[in-house]
């Protein structure tokens, strides 16, 4: 009975998430939770207050919810570990990849631990910040951390400290550090008795789980900002969505932010109109069996049904909520490809026929373009352009170039100019192609061995540096102007002798056949959405000589080692444009949507036909001039 009452409460909470609490969200207050009191249990099922042991989310939450089911149906936990393949068989095409998710697919941007000999502990140290627990690290004792997504203020820092220290079972407990339930002492974590009732349940003021908010998602996925304080970039940790896509999910108007944006005064639009209209990440990325969203299964809608009665009851849902979240179909979202297209797209919520009266041939435009092409036409944030791991800076980091900023992106004095994303034809699930805005990130790194695999960065560091200083052989080769200092513009493999010097150092360290590999990873943009008045509305933006559809995007300021990068194998975009080096040495990519079957009026034309037509026209004009001139001449002579 109690269990049913609990579920009813929870379901009420779930339903309320959509409506009356919007006002609270707008005023940046944490909505009150309707979750019943929680009794924290350890892995043995005892009250943690009594045992003093670490909390077990699987036991605590498992009191009411089927946590084993949840953990087994959560790609945020499995992150691809449930679909590993033999090395070289992964869709990325890399010989060392063994999967398609965070676990199994090498992350070139942050130079994660390389497969196939993946050490799970090493992987956890690297991926812990972006992994919710469970899945591949369950064997280490790291459970799926429910608190991370269902508490208003999970302590990510304390959690990461425990993970990095190898105290895996305490990671979930540390997540509660900021709640006052538990505190860290010299002898480890101690539970606060005043936070518990005499029955061992937590009192109201301490822990009330709630549906996850955008801020929870932002812990791993990118910059989520709510409230009235001016938005600034965080300094403490890389921000994934921001780095790769310039993605900021905030209702704040750009001109009210603390960012040094160019022409800021006129930018009265919000960073994301959906955030401004009080949507949460979960509004689109909902749990797949949430009965409130049931009718909108985007990938396989039952169009012949006006109502679907076969939906879960609240009790069934709260017992076994599938934690696979609805997802789109992006080139970067490689995990759980079998769920691609389960998310609602724009047209499933918006009536595209209203508000587009000005746009001729609406259906044709909608068939050729994803909504983001016009509604995410400009990114008002920096994003990575180039990551060069072929040489390292003294602190062991890569040389990174950014687009959309003059200077370093995290410096307050840098001017943020933003950038136009590149429109690439995306391969849709129904076999069609639609133009979608992308940021292209180009990455170069050394690989060695047979089959090749990314080299250990420590070895590269050893090859380049002696202690804190460049190795003499490297320094003499890289100091091209001979001033005794290797400047930032010299610390790059832009000459054959530099390349040879590093390669010989790597070979001297025992690496076989070291060579550079370059790859291009497209990131499609679906956030930072602008409302109609800020969207593309000028025909000339696309239909003309300077069409955005065929614009060239800079991929790199130089070619490390002279190696031309290739598109990563699992990107679902058509790659039929032109990759070229411009006269200033920059690597550029010019899109060619015509090669994907798109004909753009005002931009595409049959040049042979035009030349032939022009020749015919000129021939007629010439004939008229000769004939008419001769007639005038004869007429004058006769007179």
């Amino acid at each position, binding site marked *: 009975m109690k269990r049913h009452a609990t579920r009813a409460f929870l379901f009420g909470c779930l339903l309320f998430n959509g409506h009356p609490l919007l006002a609270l969200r707008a005023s940046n207050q944490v909505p009150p939770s309707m979750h019943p009191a929680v009794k924290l249990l350890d892995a043995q099922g005892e009250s943690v207050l009594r045992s003093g042991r670490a909390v077990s989310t699987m036991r605590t939450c498992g009191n009411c919810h089927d946590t084993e089911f949840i953990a087994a149906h959560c790609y945020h936990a499995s992150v691809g570990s449930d679909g590993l393949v033999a090395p070289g068989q992964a869709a990325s095409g890399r010989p060392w990849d063994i999967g398609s998710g965070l676990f199994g697919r090498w992350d070139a941007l942050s130079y994660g631990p390389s497969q196939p000999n993946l050490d799970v502990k090493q992987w956890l140290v690297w991926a812990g910040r972006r992994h919710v627990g469970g899945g591949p690290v369950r064997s280490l004792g790291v459970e799926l951390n429910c608190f991370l997504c269902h508490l208003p203020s999970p302590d990510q820092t304390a959690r990461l400290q425990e993970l990095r220290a190898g105290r895996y079972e305490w990671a979930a407990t540390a997540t509660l550090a900021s709640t006052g339930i538990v505190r860290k002492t010299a002898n480890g974590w101690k539970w606060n008795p005043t936070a518990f009732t005499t029955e061992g349940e937590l009192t109201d003021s301490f822990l009330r789980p709630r549906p996850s908010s955008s801020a929870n998602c932002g812990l791993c996925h990118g910059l989520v900002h709510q409230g009235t304080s001016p938005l600034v970039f965080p300094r403490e940790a890389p921000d994934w969505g921001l780095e790769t896509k310039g993605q900021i999910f905030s209702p704040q108007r750009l001109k009210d932010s603390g960012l040094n944006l160019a022409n800021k005064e006129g930018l009265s639009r919000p960073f994301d109109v959906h955030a401004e209209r009080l949507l949460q990440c979960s509004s689109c990325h909902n749990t797949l069996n949430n009965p409130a969203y049931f009718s909108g299964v985007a990938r396989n809608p039952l169009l012949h049904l006006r109502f679907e009665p076969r939906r879960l009851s609240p009790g069934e849902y709260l017992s076994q909520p599938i934690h696979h979240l609805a997802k789109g179909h992006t080139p970067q979202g490689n995990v759980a490809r079998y769920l691609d297209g389960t998310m609602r797209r724009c047209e499933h919520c918006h009536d595209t026929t209203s508000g587009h009266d000005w746009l*001729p*041939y609406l259906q044709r435009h909608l068939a050729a373009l994803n909504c983001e092409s016009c509604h995410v036409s400009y990114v008002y944030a920096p994003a990575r352009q180039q990551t060069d791991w072929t040489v390292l800076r003294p602190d062991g980091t890569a040389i990174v170039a950014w687009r959309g900023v003059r200077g370093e992106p995290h410096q307050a004095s840098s001017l943020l100019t933003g950038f136009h994303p590149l429109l690439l034809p995306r391969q849709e699930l129904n076999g069609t192609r639609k133009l979608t805005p992308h940021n292209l990130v180009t990455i170069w790194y050394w690989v060695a061995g047979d089959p090749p695999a990314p080299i250990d960065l420590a070895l590269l560091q050893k090859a380049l540096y002696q202690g804190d200083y460049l190795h003499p052989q490297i320094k003499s080769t890289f100091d091209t102007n001979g001033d005794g200092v290797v400047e930032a513009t010299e610390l790059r493999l832009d000459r054959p002798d530099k390349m040879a010097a590093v390669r010989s150092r790597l070979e001297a360290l025992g690496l076989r056949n070291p060579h550079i590999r370059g790859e291009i990873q497209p990131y499609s943009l679906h956030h930072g959405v602008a409302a109609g008045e800020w969207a593309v509305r000028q025909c*000339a933006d696309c239909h003309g*000589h300077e069409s955005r559809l065929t614009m060239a995007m800079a991929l790199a300021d130089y070619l490390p080692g002279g190696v031309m990068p290739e598109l990563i194998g699992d990107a679902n975009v058509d790659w039929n444009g032109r990759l070229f080096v411009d006269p200033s040495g920059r690597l550029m990519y010019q899109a060619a949507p015509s090669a994907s079957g798109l004909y753009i*009026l005002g931009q595409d*034309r049959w040049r042979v036909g035009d030349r*032939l037509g022009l020749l015919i026209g000129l021939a007629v004009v010439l*004939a008229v001039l000769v004939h*008419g001139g001769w007639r005038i001449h004869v007429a004058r002579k006769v007179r």
Partner: protein
Amino acid sequence: MRRVYLYSLYERLWHWLQAFCILGLLLTGLELHWPDVFALTGFATAITIHNVLGFLLLGNAFLALFYYWSTGAIRQFLPEPHDFFTLAVRQLLWYVHGMFRGEPHPFERHPQHKLNPLQKITYLAILNVLLPLQVATGLLTWAGQRWPDALARIVTWQRVLSSVHSLGAWLFAAFLIAHVYLTTTGPTPLALLRAMIVGWDEREDNHVLAEKQGN
């Protein structure tokens, strides 16, 4: 001088509406083809005008077909097999040689025979090949853009359709230049143009003409 009523009111209306449509289509077509160079009305407006003129041209063409067919006047567009080649060569020779020597026009127009052999073969090609081709490619393009889902196959052929349509437009432009120039080859430079405006063709009496030629 004698006056011959050469063009009926309907024929003149048809002709000038046709001319207006074709000129408008060429101009808006130029803007659609090179919007950066020929920014006349704005891209979206140019599309609307182009579509309206296209349908106007189509309607006008159908009405004309009905008129010429029902009145039997369509015969004058059909080349007569008898001596066609000889007459065409004679007309051509007059354009390149005879008219410079003051020779009379080898073909005298009258209400039942308004077109010389070269005009007949030209109009036959334009009205039976070029115009239908332009109308068909234009209509398919319009329909493919308007109903892209239902006519998905057409959309995939858009490049071909547009290429053919563009080449056809070039040929129309070339025809227009030649056509306008050849209207000046009448007794006076504006005589033929005037006839197409007022309907009446003024020509010198035969005996005056003979005197001028020294007969």
